[in-house]
């Protein structure tokens, strides 16, 4: 039996042949007993298979949410709270970062302005010993060697005399670091304010925490309800 004939017979049995092919095969079948026998064999096998009883499923195969790893249905407002939590957290980190970087950024900008000021302070500090020297002799210290330790004394002694203009000069003379200490003082006086007020940060943290708690509660309630189903 040719493979092609076998396929033709099987398809003929199922009515899957084109009318022309079917007519040609019927003509052959009428004159070929072997072909007819094979057709009967195929028909017999097909009838037996079709006659097999359909067994009832031994149980129901319906699925539970757990079986398919399905998440519990969350309330519709859940995504909104998730968005608020994410946004508030992001903003909080942003403001913290901004406040942290702000002094560094602002301290760089005044540096250029303070360059002139620094020079002034330098000359100012340089004048200080001279000024001290002119006024100090009234008390004691030798003019040719204005001691760092000795210098403040005359200044102090002059202060009560009402020379308030000399008040700013005292620290420069005190530690002998005219430039540095002057800068520190200026820095302290002009410390840049925080860009974002701390109260805002507290509010953002509160919002993030609140919506996070609401989210967790929503999820827990949904899971509990889902498990009870």
């Amino acid at each position, binding site marked *: *039996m040719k*493979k092609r004939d*076998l*396929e033709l*017979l*099987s*398809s003929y049995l*199922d009515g*899957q042949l084109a009318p022309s092919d079917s007519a040609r095969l019927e003509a052959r079948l009428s004159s070929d007993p072997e072909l007819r*026998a*094979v057709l*009967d*064999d*195929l028909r*017999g*096998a*097909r*009838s*037996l*298979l*079709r*006659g*097999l*009883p*359909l*067994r*009832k*499923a*031994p*149980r*129901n*195969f*319906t*699925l*539970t*949410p757990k*079986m*398919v790893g*399905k998440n519990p249905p969350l309330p519709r407002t859940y995504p909104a709270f998730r968005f608020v939590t994410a946004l508030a957290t992001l903003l909080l980190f942003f403001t913290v970062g901004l406040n942290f970087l702000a002094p560094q950024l602002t301290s760089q900008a005044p540096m250029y302005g303070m360059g002139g000021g620094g020079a002034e302070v330098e000359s100012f500090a340089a004048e200080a010993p001279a000024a001290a020297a002119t006024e100090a002799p009234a008390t004691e210290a030798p003019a040719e060697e204005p001691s760092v330790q000795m210098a403040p004394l005359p200044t102090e002694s002059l202060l009560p005399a009402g020379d308030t203009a000399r008040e700013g000069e005292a620290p420069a003379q005190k530690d002998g670091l005219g430039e540095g200490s002057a800068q520190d003082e200026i820095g302290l006086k002009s410390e840049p304010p925080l860009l974002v007020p701390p109260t805002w940060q507290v509010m953002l943290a509160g919002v993030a925490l609140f919506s996070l708690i609401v989210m967790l509660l929503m999820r827990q309630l949904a899971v509990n309800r889902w498990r009870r189903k």
Partner: protein
Amino acid sequence: MNELALISDAQQGDLDAFNTLILHYQDSVFNTALRILGDDDLAADATQEAFVSAFKSISSFRGGSFKAWLMRTVTNACYDELRRQKRRPTTQLEPDTEDGEEMDSPRWLADPSLSPEQELEADELEHALQHCLNNLPLEFKTVVVMADIQGMDYSEVAVAVHVPLGTIKSRLARARLRLRECLQGFAELLPASFRLEEGSSA
């Protein structure tokens, strides 16, 4: 049952809708698995696995015959089950007789619960048919189960098995012929009209 609406709902994640579809198709799916695997427990496992897999991938269903799509899923589950069985064989492949000699006939492979003598004496046609189905190559068995037991048409079978229509025709014809040859060994069980004259199809 509005199948299309249920499928659409299931694609949106509605498990209840999918369970309605399961209740409608579970007998067909279970029978397909049973005839391919030849074992009730394995068939039940494969059926469950097929439905889980079907739900998870139902978004990939793009219309056409839902039954054919389901049959494809269960066929894959059966193939997986057979692969697992192959990796963990529970029966020795070459059994010995009581005298310690190797058996001549491989017919025990079809049903390990019966000896060849018992098989020949089996009075259940269903059992004989299952035995013959078990002896078919897997790809022939799948096609003949879908076409002749499930009554699916050629195009549905082609979708389910994912092979061309011509291959389906060829496999079906050869499977039917092999089954008929196998059933000759159970002539006494067959209805008189189906009994063959010896060598009629040789």
